[in-house]
């Protein structure tokens, strides 16, 4: 069985680089400029990405040039769903070493090897959701010496278990915070049944039944909703029990990437499940992080 890593990745969107490049060469010690040095602050309880990372204080501004804690929280929030995928043991450490860097006399960056391990383990999953590996996490810019952050017990290779990996959008625990995180990472969510599932190249094409109820409209338009077809990106061969069972009603999430609609989450609509019922109730009052608010 081919692993996800060996599958060809969906082509990467060419990112418009910001005018102020984030890819500058890192040097030890603060750069030779007149900016004020970062402050040492407690990691807030609601910075969920970095709870339990192994230290309790962080530098602000962080190593991604986020200048306020509101900005850190807002940007870190979109990475929380990736943590739940458990695609690499070093995921939280890599992300938090940049989002909530340890307080030292000089900045400590993640090691290049840590970054490469996380990238190799997680970028196929990110691609399945339509996200390329971002420029802010380019591994080439991180150090390779001993003055960097690695996983504490760095074993060379973990033994692969016998089970083939589940399609990432189908690997969904019935937990409220997981579903809410996926809801925020998706552009739209609908309640519907599956009409047809068909292989198409490396993807699986999911045709939905005509009868739909919109849970979250997002950027979706009414005319698009009628004949909505979703793609399970790079999901031709991975198992997905939800798609095998077309008689059930599902909560289906997705987002638009270029001209395709990608399936980003699929949960069985199970009113008898207490967690699911609690989630749908919570959904009405739950607010996803609004990106423009940080800069208003």
């Amino acid at each position, binding site marked *: 069985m081919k692993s996800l890593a060996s599958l060809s990745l969906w082509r990467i969107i060419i990112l418009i680089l910001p005018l102020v490049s984030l890819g500058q060469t890192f040097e030890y010690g603060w750069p030779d*400029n007149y900016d004020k040095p970062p402050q040492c602050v407690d990691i807030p309880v609601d910075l969920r990405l970095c709870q339990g990372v192994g230290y309790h204080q962080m530098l602000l501004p962080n190593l991604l040039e986020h200048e306020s804690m509101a900005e850190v929280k807002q940007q870190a929030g979109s990475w929380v769903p990736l943590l739940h995928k458990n695609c690499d043991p070093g995921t939280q450490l890599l992300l938090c070493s940049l989002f909530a860097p340890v307080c030292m006399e000089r900045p400590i960056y993640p090691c290049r090897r840590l970054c490469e391990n996380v990238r190799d383990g997680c970028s196929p999953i990110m691609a399945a959701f339509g996200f390329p590996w971002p420029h802010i996490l380019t591994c080439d810019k991180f150090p390779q010496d001993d003055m960097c952050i690695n996983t504490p017990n760095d074993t060379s290779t973990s033994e692969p278990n016998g089970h083939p990996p589940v399609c990432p959008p189908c690997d969904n625990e019935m937990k409220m915070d997981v579903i809410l995180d996926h809801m925020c990472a998706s552009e739209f969510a609908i309640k519907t049944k599956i009409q047809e599932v068909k292989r198409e190249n490396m993807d699986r094409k999911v045709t939905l039944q005509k009868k739909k109820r919109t849970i979250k409209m997002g950027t979706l338009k009414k005319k698009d909703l009628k004949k909505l077809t979703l793609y399970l990106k790079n999901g031709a061969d991975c198992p997905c029990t939800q798609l095998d069972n077309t008689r059930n009603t599902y909560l289906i999430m997705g987002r638009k990437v270029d001209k395709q609609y990608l399936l980003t989450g699929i949960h069985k609509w199970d009113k008898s499940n207490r967690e699911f019922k609690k989630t749908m109730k919570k959904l009405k009052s739950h607010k996803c992080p609004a990106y*423009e608010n940080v*800069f208003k």
Partner: protein
Amino acid sequence: MDLYLVGFLMCMWFSSSRVLGGYPIWWSLALGQQYSSIGSQPILCGSIPGLVPKQLRFCRNYIEIMPSVAEGVKLGIQECQHQFRGRRWNCTTIKDSLAIFGPVLDKATRESAFVHAIASAGVAFAVTRSCAEGTSTMCGCDSHHKGPPGEGWKWGGCSEDAEFGVLVSREFADARENRPDARSAMNRHNNEAGRMTILENMHLRCKCHGLSGSCEVKTCWWAQPDFRLLGDYLKDKYDSASEMVVEKHRESRGWVETLRAKYAFFKHPTERDLVYYEGSPNFCEPNPETGSFGTRDRACNVSSHGIEGCDLLCCGRGHNTRTEKRKEKCHCIFHWCCYVSCQECVRVYDVHTCK
């Protein structure tokens, strides 16, 4: 109270008339720690030496901004010392003196032109930055000059209001440069050149903060350049400064001195260029009258043929070489979580100093 102030100012005027004529005494703001404090004790405008009445009024009316003015002068001096670190004159300051550069800036030299420009730019820069940081209630982000956003990004963040910083710098630094003599005209010109450097190097700074750091959501704002870039720019202007001659004209208010380019076939100076009209002293030998400290015992670069090389910096007198052993941290390792352990290494350096 008012009588005391009048008396104080009169004493300053008569006893330091020579210094007041050409020297911005208020630059000593940069060295006095008491002037920079915000919370511990308020700035006493009357205790700042060398303020002319207009500056005194400014200080009292805009007391909130004065810490930024002090910070700006400090910034300018730091940058001056960086830019001239390998030069014969290296922007040395004199402790415990109100004329913090000594008599070297009394003359209308190229060095004086640079210091005026960098100090003026420093004040504008520091005031602009403190406004953006929100430390003052009388200024903030620049909400004008917005215009339509570009393709794929929106206005956001805090656009720095450099116009306000320049206004403060102009009001304060030029307040004492309203005399009709040539030196006053030169100082006004060079102060303005320093300020223009900031306005012309404002740039759009952007951040991508969409999902997973993508550029789906991108916000931009106007930002000042790093002050190091301003220093580099003004240093180039120093190297290409225009020499002037003094002309006297009879006007309704009496004799007025203006500056004219000395060499007509050279390019005339623009408002962005630095100008001077007196030659610089020889900085090779110590001379208390000119304010030169000389280059004896200065560290020099033996492998360089530039101005910081031993041949030029030592003015042909030669150099001494000694070895220096320095203990340094080496082989540092970061341990989880979280501390750094280093070994201690001894490295041997060759140190070359001017004879």
